[in-house]
């Protein structure tokens, strides 16, 4: 019955004008609504972009405020602090040591956008590192011989520096820079406690297996993760990692072997990976990656074509063999305790190190300095060499050489404070070069690398 009535209405056109008008008004309203809502959606997208950008700047601000606090108090060491920013914004800052540098992670939220940045932070070289050569053994004259070329200022004791003939071979190099002769020249400032704490932290991995962080922490994106959040793998004896173990190194991890640890290439590791050996750590052949940390209590040695950026720590001995290329920012650090056993750092012919070689003092004024840094003739270092002991330097240094004594042996004589066939040019050092920490009483910190800008919706969403 109702169906028949509808057909009747449809056939009769009377009243259809009102219906048509209503339909048209509805259509226009729907269209207008759609336009407005689409406009609003688009507007919200743009606002979200702006909020994300503001969240990123806030996260970066958190890093800089943390750096400022660290400069004013180098021992400020928050694990998880909330930093107040302008306009009532905040940033959650976590600071963690990574070898000689710091990782600062900052998480900020603006409205509903959240941004996380992770920065690797080093120290701006203090004034002493703008000299080409700084030798603080004031007992004897410094002799430059052979083809030695020095470009940059030189700081030596009051006995000065002399261009000398060596075994009837005349000096054919050159010295381009001012020679400052300073009576009672002291060693440059260096607070070894920071790097010593790093070694103690690494030793802790060997003495007791730290608990692997919770799965929630491990679930963080790699770019946000700090090295302390790595999964930890501990082996009681010795360990040899080969290509077959590549899957293990797919993420940043901490590998601890209480005996020897051998990395046999081809192997690739992720930034923030730690390799810790209770005895010797050996890196062989095609091992590559960046920002690794390598600790061998007795030694760290490379062989074959190694291409990586890494911080190498040992209590006794580090050897970088020919064909190794260490990218910036690499650090070679041997603590002073084992100096009397002939420890030190050796950079062999043909090896390249971009970064810092540091061999700190056991005794600030040693009676007999023994541990050595040896840089062989065709080796190249770009950065700085800081050595409280003896340095045997025959290679090329684009940066500063700061050492207690110079040394080399040519049968049958040991030559103290002689520099032969070396090239040092402080002006060739990259402008943005940063040191590991604590070479100044009031350190100036700078960001070495922004590790990540991760934007994501805030957890509150």
């Amino acid at each position, binding site marked *: 019955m109702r169906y028949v009535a509808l057909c009747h209405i449809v056939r009769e*056109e009377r009243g259809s004008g009102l219906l048509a008008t209503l339909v048209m008004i509805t259509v226009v309203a729907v269209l207008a609504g759609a336009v407005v809502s*689409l406009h609003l959606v688009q507007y919200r997208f743009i606002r979200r972009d702006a909020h994300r950008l503001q969240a990123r*700047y806030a996260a970066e601000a958190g890093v800089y405020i943390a750096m400022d606090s660290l400069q004013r108090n180098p021992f400020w060491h928050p694990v998880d602090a909330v930093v107040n920013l302008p306009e009532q914004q905040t940033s959650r800052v976590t600071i963690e040591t990574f070898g000689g540098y710091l990782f600062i992670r900052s998480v900020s939220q603006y409205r509903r956008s959240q941004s996380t940045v992770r920065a690797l932070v080093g120290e701006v070289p203090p004034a002493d590192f703008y000299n080409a050569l700084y030798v603080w053994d004031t007992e004897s004259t410094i002799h430059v011989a052979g083809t030695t070329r020095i470009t940059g200022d030189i700081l030596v004791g009051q006995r000065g520096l002399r261009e000398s003939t060596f075994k009837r071979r005349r000096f054919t190099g050159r010295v381009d820079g001012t020679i400052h002769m300073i009576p009672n020249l002291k060693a440059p400032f260096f607070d070894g406690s920071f790097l010593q704490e790093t070694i103690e932290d690494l030793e802790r991995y060997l003495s007791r297996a730290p608990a692997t962080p919770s799965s929630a922490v491990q679930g963080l994106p790699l770019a946000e993760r700090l090295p302390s959040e790595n999964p930890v793998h501990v082996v009681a004896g010795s360990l040899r990692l080969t290509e077959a173990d590549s899957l293990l190194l797919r993420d940043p991890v901490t590998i601890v072997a209480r005996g020897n640890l051998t990395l046999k290439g081809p192997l690739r590791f992720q930034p923030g990976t730690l390799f810790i050996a209770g005895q010797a750590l050996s890196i062989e052949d095609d091992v590559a990656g960046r920002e690794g940390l390598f600790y061998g209590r007795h030694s760290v040695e490379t062989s074959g074509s190694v291409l990586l950026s890494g911080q190498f720590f040992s209590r006794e001995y580090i050897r970088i063999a020919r064909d190794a290329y260490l990218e910036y920012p690499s650090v070679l650090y041997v603590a002073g305790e084992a100096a009397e056993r002939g420890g030190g750092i050796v950079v062999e012919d043909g090896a390249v190190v971009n970064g810092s070689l540091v061999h700190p003092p056991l005794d600030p004024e040693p009676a007999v300095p023994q541990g050595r840094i040896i840089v062989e003739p065709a080796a190249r270092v770009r950065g700085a060499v800081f050595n409280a002991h003896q340095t045997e330097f025959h290679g090329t240094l684009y940066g500063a050489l700061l050492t207690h004594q110079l040394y080399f042996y040519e049968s049958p004589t040991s030559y103290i404070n002689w520099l032969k066939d070396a090239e040092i040019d402080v002006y060739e050092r990259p402008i943005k070069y940063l040191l590991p920490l604590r070479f100044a009483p009031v350190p100036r910190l700078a960001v070495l690398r922004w590790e990540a800008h991760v934007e994501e919706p805030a957890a509150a969403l």
Partner: protein
Amino acid sequence: MKSRVALCALLRDTAGHSLIEVTVATSLVVSVLIPLSGLVVYLLNSHPNAPHLVALAIGEQFMEETLHERSYVSQHVPLDRNRWLVHKSVSHEGNQVTITIRIFRRNRPRPLVELITVRLLS
């Protein structure tokens, strides 16, 4: 079966066709114009001249230039024949520099974009 017969009868009978045409036309308009209008709005907003996009781009560019060149000085910069006004305000506290960039459209009291960050004096 009954309804099919009724529909055929309705189509044969031209009476009432204009209402059907109106309905069909309306459906077409709705189904074509809504997506089309959405597209137009999208194109308008994603066009480089969309106000908020322009303000965001100007803000980011000014901030990056400020950070890169370390020009930590307050200034007001009119842009594009005064269509835009950039307020850069810098405040110092100890070693910290707070940089605020606000992008205004002409004759608008509220900024379209506001960016704030902190850097250190070297």
